[in-house]
């Protein structure tokens, strides 16, 4: 049994204040990988924080090789701001301000930069530089299914993605030298990494926490850090590509009333997905699946549902996405 030791990374902010980022370190006292698991680089993406809390308890009991570095609140500044990144204001996204303060575009940081660059620099020196593998837990909007974002390096990063065992996986290429994301930074240094997007921001759902915990545990098992083999449920690792995806769009203006379905569930061609109450004559238009496959996206939404409540509104304009199905 290896106790989880609480420690802090200290960052000197530009106004002289010091930020203390808490993390757990769990040593098995045996050789092995150093796996860094982080959550909440973006302040509104906090489901991974609970994943890490539960993982710490498991590792404290069962870690058999290597070292775990667990950071549930990677970007405390943004978490306290309760938005994706510091400084951004109401319903802002994809602005120059966001780019400047998005911590996942700042790695490996800068000790003389703004607060976010300083934070990234301190975390990099204290933790990131010392890991051999990284899992970066994010969340995207509630209309999109959980997915592993994996790197096909033909080696350890690929094995991590395959071991995660989520229903959906998206593969990316080896990062270029100029990519400033955390995962890319670790891979560029010769390490391995993957990211996950859990479904739903501004919330912590039990189902997502379990999915995240299983995926992270699977990777730790694959690396030999936890006992046993990865547990891969059936129908996992379904690759999401544009060619495999069929988007169901609103045929007219109206209110989309979704049937009770869950992201990731199996869909048959012709299956009912919900109905649209038309704005002009109040008739109910049934919405059905044009193809069979797996429910990848579900619910009427527009481009920025992760920052704007109106973009979560079930009122649909013609052409708004209502669902997306990935066929295999």
């Amino acid at each position, binding site marked *: 049994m290896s106790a989880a030791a609480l420690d802090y990374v200290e960052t000197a902010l530009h106004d002289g204040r010091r930020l203390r980022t808490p993390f757990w370190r769990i040593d098995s006292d045996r050789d092995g990988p150093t796996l860094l698991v982080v959550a909440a680089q973006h302040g509104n993406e*906090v489901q991974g924080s609970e994943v890490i*809390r539960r993982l710490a308890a498991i590792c404290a009991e069962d870690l058999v090789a290597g070292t775990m570095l667990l950071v549930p609140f990677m970007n405390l500044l943004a978490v306290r701001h309760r938005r994706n990144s510091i400084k951004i204001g109401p319903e802002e996204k994809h602005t120059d301000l966001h780019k400047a303060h998005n911590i996942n575009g700042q790695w490996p940081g800068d000790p003389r930069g703004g607060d976010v660059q300083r934070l990234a620099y301190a975390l990099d020196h204290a933790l990131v530089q010392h890991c051999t593998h990284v899992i970066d837990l994010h969340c995207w909007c509630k209309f999109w299914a959980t997915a592993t974002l994996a790197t096909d390096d033909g080696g350890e990063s690929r094995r991590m993605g395959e071991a995660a065992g989520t229903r959906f996986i998206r593969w990316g290429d080896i990062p270029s030298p100029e990519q400033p994301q955390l995962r890319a930074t670790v891979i560029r240094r010769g390490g391995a990494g993957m990211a996950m997007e859990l479904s739903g921001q501004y919330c912590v759902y039990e189902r997502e926490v379990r999915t995240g915990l299983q995926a992270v545990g699977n990777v730790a098992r694959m690396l030999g850090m936890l006992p046993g083999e990865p547990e891969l449920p059936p129908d996992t690792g379904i690759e999401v590509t544009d060619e495999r995806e069929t988007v169901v769009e609103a045929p007219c203006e109206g209110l989309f009333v979704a049937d009770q379905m869950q992201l990731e569930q199996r869909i048959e061609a012709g299956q009912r997905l919900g109905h649209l109450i038309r704005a002009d004559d109040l008739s109910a238009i049934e919405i059905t699946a044009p193809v069979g496959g797996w429910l990848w996206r579900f619910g009427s939404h527009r481009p920025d549902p992760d920052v704007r409540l*109106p973009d979560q509104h*079930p*009122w649909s304009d013609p052409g708004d996405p209502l669902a997306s199905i990935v066929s295999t």
Partner: protein
Amino acid sequence: MALEATLNRATATLTDGSEVHTPWWHIDSGGEGEALLVIAAQHGNEVQGCEVIRRFREVCERELRRGEVFLVPFANLPAIRHRRSHTSLGPEQPYGDDRGHNMNRTWPGDPDGNDTERVAHSLHEAVVRHCSRCLDLHSWSRFTATAALARRDSGLSQQMAEASAVRFIQWRKPPSGQSGGKTIGALFNDSGRGGLTIELAPQWVIREKEVAVGLRAATNLARLFGMMAGEPEPLDGPCVELGPEKEDHEDRLHELTAPCAGLFVEAGLETSDHVEEGQVLGHIIREAHLERVEITAPAAGWLWEYGCHRPNCDVALPPQHPWADEGDALAAVLEPRPEGERTGESTSA
């Protein structure tokens, strides 16, 4: 023989000369009786009632025996298309910044007023003035339980609330003046007709559970008024009442706030759920030391509020964030009144 709803439209001419055609259904039993109005989405982000009305139409076509029903699922189409409560609101602006565009402060509307007043006036002339009873369907944030809002000065409003079979009833005082504009509920209750408002939680979504609650309420009202056969379907368990004065419920309301800063992780409960004393409601991952701080129910009762939230959680995402500062609201458990006691019994206009 089944009745058939007729589709109609109320037309408003807006200040720029364009027109809004608000669709509504009318179902006439052909027999004497009340004229029940069911209206939803006066606020553009409160759309659960729209689906309630679509389903209630089918019930009425099968079961209406007396009187007539007027059904307006999209009362404020401009606000719905704006996807916010009022057409005047911008990013994360609270309801109160309505600048005269809160439809539920405009009744009976004004044909020469602003666009919202004009839409209300068109509905009033085409629909509302013909009705003797009103069920006004709204939605509030996901952190507060679905509730019926009613007045105790009017026998009808009180009867309607009690027949609705909604778990929570929040008794409200009659408006003391007209400075804030008139709600459709006040329009009915002030004129001796009966009005009831139901807040289905939450906004920006449609949930099967809430639609079922709203549909039962609408059907129960039709039964209460003899428009459909049978008695109102009762609630499974006690009705839990609040207000209108704080002292009416403060000894039964147990509010829980965050004891420290950190991430509140809910325990999978929902508002309106029953909880036992000592039941785990969730935990906080404390910022300072990462330890788990358990949050438990201080008494048995019903979840009136649940989830970490702050003001304006009905218009913005950050106030819905589960990151709690010390003192932020996490939950409120409300005990029912002991049998034989009534809330606000002495309050009458």
